[in-house]
């Protein structure tokens, strides 16, 4: 079930909210668990078994770790949990990729398994792994109630597309949380804004990207339109989803950490990754980079650690070499920045360092978006083929004209400009009351407009669902 769908908005959500707030507090986690399992079952009826199995396995492993703390059995339980999670992920997500590579290396013809990827598997396996590791490290308490643990793993607001919520972030909230009108209002507002980002902006940019990529006649403008639309689409799609998840969390009394912080205003790649998909970056830093020794090792080992982290980051995004190259591309740039470039960038005028960062990120999204090496090369060449391609065609100018307002809105929306204006208006004594009273009306209107778009177009998948 998609958040941006009529069944979710007007059937699932009101029913869950009503039941959740009507039952006694002690039953609320059970309601949340049942709702989440139904939510997952609706999208993946068969794989709900895998989700339950994965949760119970890590629940059991963590109980063993807790019971035999500091002994070999705890280590064995941790190793079992991590290995099983990685095997599950490898089998369901990477088996065909591995088979294809074996076939091309050995000339064999092992048939692909063609297993459909379970929704959200990359997110929930990472969450459960983080839990057992944290329990082993003594950074998280052992959860003794299987229903509460499963409520954490399967919690529908963040189940299928993140953010990757570490157990320790919400351990106390699972035990007991406060629900307030203020929190509900703030969550509802955040949810609707995320919905608007996804449905009104990301989907329109997705259309533009598709139109540009399938244009009849290529032109330099078409290549630029395609990649700029994709850059903005992926940001609004994914950050919109994170907004919805955070907003829903707030409605039910949870506080998830922020996942995006205006990444396109970054002045370096180092800063970009502090602002983009923060929960995933944090996970890899905490559980891979630091486990490997982080930067407290020799320079060579440090480079190796970064290479491993970014190889995994790339592979996490998809079972294809272009994702691996995409990850390693960032790894190389981060090493370069850490060695010398970061300091230089700090001395440059902000406009230049931002331009540098946007350019690097833009090229990275060509690698991310186009699957073949030849396709990537041709696309990058197309961006700069000022002499061999027409600068613009009737078609490209038409699309630019048709989507110009969406593009302008997306560019402005990807900066903190609007947020800062609202904050300033709220602080202003004369405007504060007006902003407070307009905001509910604005989000209600936005919800109706989003519904209109959903009614007009029923198929509306999220980009990050298959990662």
């Amino acid at each position, binding site marked *: *079930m998609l958040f941006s*769908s*009529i*069944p979710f*908005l*007007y*059937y699932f*959500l*009101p*029913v869950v*909210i*009503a039941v959740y707030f009507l039952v006694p507090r002690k039953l609320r986690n059970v309601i949340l668990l049942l709702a989440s399992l139904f939510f997952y079952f*609706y*999208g993946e*009826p*068969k794989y709900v078994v895998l989700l339950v199995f994965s949760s119970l396995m890590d629940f059991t492993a963590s109980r063993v770790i807790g019971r035999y703390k500091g002994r070999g059995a705890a280590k064995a339980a941790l190793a079992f949990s991590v290995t099983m999670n990685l095997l599950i992920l490898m089998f369901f997500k990477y088996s065909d990729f591995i088979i294809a590579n074996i076939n091309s290396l050995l000339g064999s013809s092992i048939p692909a398994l063609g297993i459909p990827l379970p929704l959200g598997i990359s997110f929930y396996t990472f969450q459960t792994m983080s839990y057992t590791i944290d329990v082993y490290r003594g950074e998280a308490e052992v959860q003794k109630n299987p229903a509460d643990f499963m409520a954490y793993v399967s919690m529908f607001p963040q189940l299928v597309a993140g953010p990757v919520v570490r157990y320790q972030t919400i351990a106390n909230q699972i035990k007991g949380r406060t629900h*307030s*009108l*203020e929190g*509900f*209002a*703030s969550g*509802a*507002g955040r949810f*609707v804004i995320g919905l608007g980002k996804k449905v*009104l902006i990301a989907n*329109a940019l997705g259309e533009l990207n598709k139109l540009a990529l399938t244009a*009849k006649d290529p032109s330099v403008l078409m290549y630029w339109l395609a990649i700029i639309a994709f850059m903005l689409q992926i940001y609004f799609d994914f950050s919109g989803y994170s907004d919805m998840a955070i907003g829903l969390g707030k409605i039910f009394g949870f506080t998830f950490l922020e996942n995006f912080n205006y990444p396109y205003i970054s002045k370096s790649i180092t800063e970009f990754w502090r602002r983009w998909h923060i929960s995933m970056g944090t996970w890899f830093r905490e559980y891979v980079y630091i486990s490997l020794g982080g930067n407290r090792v020799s320079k060579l080992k440090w480079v190796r650690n970064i290479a491993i982290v970014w190889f995994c980051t790339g592979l996490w995004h998809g079972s294809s070499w272009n994702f691996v190259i995409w990850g390693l591309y960032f790894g190389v740039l981060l090493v370069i920045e850490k060695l010398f470039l970061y300091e230089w960038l700090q001395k440059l005028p902000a406009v230049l360092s931002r331009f540098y960062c946007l350019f690097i990120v833009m090229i990275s999204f060509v690698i991310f978006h186009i699957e073949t090496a030849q396709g990537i090369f041709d696309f990058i060449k197309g961006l700069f083929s000022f002499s061999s391609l027409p600068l613009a065609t*009737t*078609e490209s100018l*038409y699309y630019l*004209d*048709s*989507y*110009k*307002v*969406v593009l302008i809105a997306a560019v402005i929306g990807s900066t903190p400009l609007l947020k800062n204006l609202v904050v300033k208006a709220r602080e202003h004594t004369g405007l504060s009351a007006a902003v*407070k*009273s307009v*905001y*509910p*009306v604005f*989000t*209600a209107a936005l*919800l*109706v*407009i989003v*519904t*209109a*778009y*959903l*009614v*007009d177009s*029923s198929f509306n998948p999220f980009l990050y669902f298959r990662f």
Partner: protein
Amino acid sequence: MKRKISFADLSHVTLFLGILFAVLVINIFKPADVISFSERRKLAQFPEISIPAVLSKESMDGFDNYSVDQIAFRERYRRLKAVFDTKVWFKSDNNAIFVVGDQVFKTEYPTNFNSARRLCDVLNYVYDTLPAGIEARCAFVPDKNYYLGETRHLVMDYKELSAFVYTCLRDGIEEIDLFDKLTLDCFYMTDSHWRQDRIGAVVDAIYESFGSAASFDSGIYTTEVFSPFYGVYYGQSALNVKPDDLLYLESSFTKNAAVSSIEQPGVELCVYAEDQLGGVDSYSLFMQGPQAIIRAENPQEPSGRELVIFRDSYASSLAPLLLPGYSAVTLVDLRYIRPDLLGAFIEFTDQDVLFLYSATLFNNSDSIKSPPQEEFISPFVARSVIG
């Protein structure tokens, strides 16, 4: 200490929950509609709920479609979306539909030469099965976008597509040029089709091409009017555009014609199916709408000269105007019958044969049925095999 309730938060939660629960309750009690007239399609109904259907996700997919199709105020939502797209985002079109003045258009772009070639291959197959010496013509109908003139909208190159079509067709199939026989006024404002009351020049061009002495005589017709006519683009645009009047020309030829369809054997039909007016598609008034093969016999023309039109829907409103020149006019729609099966229904002897297709169909020929592959070798394929 009890926190003070903020009016802003209270109104926010009330509005949010109010919308969610209002839509839920209205949808639960709203009876399901069967058809969307504006979109001209059946609406999804509540899905079957069974263990196999649930496990295969069929029930969930069905419910997704049902919930979107049956939502209360669906048409108002669609209109809101169209208005937002065009007036807030300032997009040049909404779902490829755009409005210029009172006319509604649908973007047909880019030119799909492969599709045009495919249709030409099928027409060549038909032509090759005709007896030698039969007179065959092809009329390429430019759609109304051609007559937009200078525009910022994307319009395919109709002249180029037309030239390509005539290059692909057999040499024996002669061209009837319709480009200068039509203007924008010849088309409905809210529909893709031409208006029957404004295609006299097309009728004359066809007569002339087949060497017929007949000509279009507006004096023999009385004009009937059906209003309002909501054309195919009216519903798709979801905008507040002015509907058309549907005009149709009655004459003794149309009233006395004996009409029969292979889909309704033994049933006497009319040239104008007035029972279709006000239905899902009022344009189906003309020659009973979509039919595989329909034949109109004209008892007032004893010459025995017959015309067979391989056609799309444009010919439905044209055929009644060709009756005065022929003893019978047969319409064949290859979207509903395979060309290799025609021999069972039509005996080709010396009829005039007209291939009349719109640019839109040449550009989107997937719906045209091909003969079975083993019998059908496209000349282009054959050439490449030989080469």
